C-alpha cells in the first residue's frame, strides 16, 4: 500500500512537472505545504535552466552535482528567493537539505526550504518573489503549487498551481486565509476511509482471519468443527477487530510521531505474509482462540504501513495529532462498515453445509493473492493477481450481493437436504448425500 502511495505521490509530482520532457527550457516547480506556523517548500530546479542561468555546464549530475555545487545552489536560493507578507513584512527563509531527482527525464535539483513569517503575520497569505533562475533566464517559468493546506482540507492529491512566474513577472501571491482545523480533520478522515477501502491487502487479511470466527474447533483437533453460538461468534469478531485496531493504532501513532521508522519494503512483505498466515489458519486451526493475539500482532505491521501514508502528508505538531486521530477514525469506521456488511452473511453461511467449501475456496484465494504480493514485494516479480483483486474490490456491492445470493442458495439447498433426510423413506429426488 505504501508503494501505491509512493507511486501516487510521484505521479502527482509528474503531473506538475510534465511537459518538461523533450523540452530545452523546462520550468521550475515550488511545492508548498501550508502548515500551522510556517510554510514548507520544495524547490525543483531543472539543471539545464540552472546551467543557462550560470552560463556554464555543471558537468556532473546526481549527487555528485549536489556535492560539488551545494554552497552555490544554497546561495542562489537565499539570494534570489524572497517571501513576504502582503503588507511587505519579510519572512525568513531557511534552506534545508539538497537532493537530486529527475522530472520527466530532466535532471532537477531539489531544495527543501522553510518560509517563516514574522510575529503577528499569518502563514496563509504571502507573496513569493522567485528570481532563482529567472534572474538570469528571462523566459524561465516557475510553477508555484500548493501541495498541502490542512486548514483548507488539502492533504493529498494533485498540487494546485496557484501561480506561474515568467518574463518580467517574478511574484506570485498565495492568499489562502480562512479555513479551519476541522476541514483538515475531515479531509484526513476521508483519507483514512479511502485508505482502507482501497487497501485490498489490509481487508483481505482481516476478512480471512474472520473466516473461521463462526466455528469452533472440532473435538479432534487440527480441524474446524461445528458452528459456534452467535454470542461466541460475535465475541470472537469483537476480539479480533479490536485487537487489530489496537495493534495498528499503536504503530500508526508511533510511526507518524517519528518514534518508529520501519522501512516500507519489509513491512509490505510482512503484510503479504500475514494474509498467508490467516489463510492457513482458515484452512486448519493453527492458533484457535488466539486469533486476537495474531490480529494484534499483525496489526502492528499494518499500522506501520498506515503511518507511511500519513508521513507523506508533511504535518507536524497539533495538526499531526489531529490527523492521527482523523486518519485512525477513518480507518476504523471504514473497517467496521466493511466487516459489518460482510460478517452477518458469513455467519449465516456458516450454518449451511456449504461453508466448508466456501471457507476452503476463500482461503485458497487469499493464499494465491498473498503469494502474488509476496513475490512482488519480496522478490520484485510481476504480480498478475493484483489487477484482478483491485478490479473485484472496486465493486463491493456486487461482491456483497454475490455473498448474499450464495447464502440464499446454500440455505435453500441445506433445507432441501434436511427435508430429504427427514423423509428418507421416500425415493431419492436426486439430491446426493
Amino acid at each position, binding site marked *: 500500500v505504501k508503494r501505491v502511495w509512493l507511486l501516487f505521490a510521484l505521479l502527482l509530482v509528474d503531473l506538475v512537472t510534465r511537459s518538461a520532457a523533450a523540452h530545452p527550457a523546462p520550468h521550475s516547480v515550488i511545492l508548498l505545504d501550508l502548515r500551522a506556523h510556517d510554510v514548507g517548500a520544495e524547490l525543483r530546479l531543472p539543471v539545464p535552466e540552472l546551467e543557462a542561468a550560470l552560463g556554464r555546464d555543471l558537468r556532473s549530475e546526481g549527487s555528485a552535482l549536489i556535492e560539488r555545487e551545494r554552497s552555490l545552489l544554497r546561495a542562489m536560493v537565499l539570494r534570489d528567493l524572497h517571501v513576504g507578507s502582503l503588507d511587505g513584512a519579510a519572512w525568513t527563509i531557511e534552506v534545508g537539505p539538497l537532493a537530486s531527482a529527475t522530472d520527466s527525464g530532466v535532471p532537477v535539483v531539489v531544495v527543501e526550504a522553510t518560509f517563516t513569517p514574522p510575529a503577528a503575520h499569518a502563514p496563509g497569505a504571502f507573496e513569493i518573489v522567485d528570481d532563482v533562475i529567472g534572474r538570469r533566464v528571462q523566459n*524561465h517559468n516557475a510553477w508555484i503549487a500548493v501541495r498541502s493546506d490542512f486548514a483548507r482540507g488539502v492533504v*493529498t492529491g494533485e498540487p*494546485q498551481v496557484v501561480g506561474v512566474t*515568467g*518574463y518580467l513577472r517574478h511574484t506570485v501571491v498565495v492568499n489562502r486565509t480562512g479555513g479551519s482545523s476541522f476541514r483538515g480533520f475531515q479531509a484526513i478522515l476521508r483519507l483514512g476511509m479511502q485508505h482502507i477501502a482501497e487497501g485490498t491487502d489490509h481487508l483481505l487479511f482481516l476478512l480471512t482471519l474472520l473466516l473461521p470466527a463462526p466455528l469452533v474447533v472440532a473435538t479432534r483437533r487440527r480441524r474446524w468443527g461445528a458452528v459456534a453460538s452467535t454470542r461466541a461468534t460475535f465475541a470472537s469478531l469483537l476480539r479480533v477487530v479490536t485487537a487489530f485496531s489496537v495493534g495498528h493504532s499503536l504503530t500508526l501513532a508511533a510511526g507518524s510521531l517519528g518514534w518508529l521508522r520501519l522501512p516500507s519494503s519489509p513491512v509490505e512483505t510482512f503484510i503479504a505474509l500475514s494474509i498467508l498466515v490467516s489463510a492457513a489458519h482458515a484452512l486448519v486451526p493453527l492458533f484457535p482462540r488466539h486469533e486476537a493475539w495474531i490480529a494484534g500482532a499483525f496489526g502492528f505491521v499494518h499500522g506501520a504501513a498506515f503511518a507511511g501514508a500519513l508521513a507523506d502528508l508533511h504535518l507536524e505538531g497539533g495538526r499531526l495529532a489531529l490527523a492521527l486521530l482523523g486518519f485512525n477514525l477513518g480507518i476504523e469506521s471504514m473497517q467496521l462498515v466493511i466487516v459489518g456488511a460482510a460478517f452477518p452473511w458469513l455467519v449465516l453461511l456458516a450454518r449451511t453445509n456449504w461453508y466448508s467449501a466456501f471457507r476452503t475456496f476463500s482461503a485458497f484465494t487469499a493464499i494465491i493473492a498473498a503469494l502474488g504480493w509476496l513475490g512482488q514485494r519480496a522478490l520484485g516479480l510481476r504480480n498478475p493477481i493484483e489487477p484482478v483483486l483491485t478490479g473485484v474490490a472496486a465493486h463491493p456491492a456486487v461482491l456483497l450481493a454475490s455473498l448474499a445470493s450464495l447464502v440464499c442458495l446454500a440455505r435453500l439447498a441445506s433445507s432441501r437436504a434436511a427435508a430429504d433426510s427427514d423423509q428418507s423413506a421416500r425415493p431419492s429426488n436426486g439430491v446426493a448425500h
Partner: protein
Amino acid sequence: MTKRRYERTDTAGRRDEFWLTAAGIAGLTLTGFVACGGNDSSAGTGGSAGTAGSVAAGATGGSGGTAAGTTNGGTGGTSGSAGAEGGTGTTVACSADSSTAANMEAVVAAATELVSKLTADQQSTIQLDATIDNVEQWSNLPTSAIARNGVMLGDMSADAQTAAVALVAVAAGDTGSTLFSELRAADEYLVTNGNADSNSYGEGRYYIAFVGVPSTTSSWTLQVAGHHLAYNFTYNGACTSATPLFDGVEPTTWTDTTDHAPLETQRAAAVAVIAAIAGDPTSLLSGTYSDIVNGPTNANGKGDSHYPSGLTYPTGTSGRGVLVGSLSTDDQQLVKTAIEAWVHNVADPIANALLAEYESDDALAATYVAYSGATDLTTKNSYFRVDGPRVWIEYTIQGGIVYPSRVHYHTIWRDKAADYGAEYVDAEPSTDTSTAGTSSGGPGSGGPPGGSPPGAAAGGAPAGL
C-alpha cells in the same frame, strides 16, 4: 474433503438468524447505496477534497506592475476597432482593414471546398466553437504532447489533403505555404533520419481546424497547426490579424534531393539587424533567453493559455534594446526586412495591411530591436527580438532535441493588440480546476482589474520547446 458434515446446531436459534439476515440485508443495501448511488460522495473522497485536476493555470501576474494585460478596448462598439493597453498606459489601437476582404472570401471558398472533401466525422471534427479555450489550443510541442484542434492531414483522403494544401496556399500566401510544406518536411525528416517517434512527429501530423464557422461575415479563425508551426488567421475579427504565429524548426538545415533551411530567411534577416545594432551596447539585452518568453504555456495539456492577461511585454524605455527610429535609413530597412520575414507568412493583403501598421514612421520610432547571446545566432541561448507598439517577434536558438548535438529554432510573432483578431481580449481561458482552493491574484497581482475567476487567468506553464 471432509467426511463429516457440520451439523446444524440448535444453538443458533431462529431469532439469531433473523437478526443476522436483517443485518446482512442492511449492510447490502448500504453498500449498494454507497457504491451505486453515492457517486458524488465517493468522488469527493477519492479526489481528496476537491483537488482533482487542479494543476491548473493559476492567476497571478506579476506584482511588479509589469503585466501589460490587454484590457478591454472599446468593447468592439466602435466600428470594428479594438485596443489593447500597453504597459506604458498608452492604448494601442488596431482595426479591421477592408482591403483584406477578397482574400477572406477566397479563404472561405477554399475552406468550404476542403469541408466537401472530408468524411462526415471529419467535417464535424474540423469545426470548433469560437471560444478562447479552443482558439488557444496550439503549441510548440510535438502533437503527442499537446493535442491540436481539427483534422490531421495524415488522416485525410488524398483529395482532401490537396484541398487542405490549397487552403493553406490561399490563406498563407507563397511564403507561408512554402514554410508550411518545409516544416512538414523537417518533421518527416526527424522520423526518417532522426528515428523520432512517428506518433509524435511526421509530415502527416499537421492539422487544419476552424474555430468558429468559416463565414464571409462573422468572425472565425483558421488554424494550421503541428509540431513546429501554428498559423492562427482570424477573419472578420475586430482587427485584421494573422497572429499568434509560431514557427520553429529542427533540424535547422538538411539535404535530401535539395538543400533545406526553412527558417533561413528569418534567421538571415535577424542576423543582419543584429550586425547593424551590435555596436550599440544597449542592443544587448540583459539575462539569458533559453526560449521565447511569450510563447505557449503548455500547462494542463493546453497551449497558449497565457493569453490574454498572462502575456508580458516590456514597458518603459530602458532595457528593451535600440530604437529603430535612431537607426540609419539603411539599417531601418534591415529591420523592415526582418519584420517582413515573419509577416509575409500570411497572404499578401493581410500582410500588407499589418505591415502598414508595423512599419509606419510613428510605429518604427517606437519599435525596439535587441538581441542576446551570439550575434550570428548560431549558438544555444542566442536571441533576437523586435518589440514595437504592436509587433512582437522573438527568435531563439535552443539545444537540439532529436539531434542533441545541434541547435534548433523557436520563433513567435505576436501582435500586442490584434492576436486572434482581438476577438478574445476580454476573455479568460477556463481551467480544469473547479476548486475554490486556488487562491490567485490576490492584492498585488498583475491580473486584469476587476478580478478574473479564481484560477482562471494567466497561468500556465513555460514557454515551450
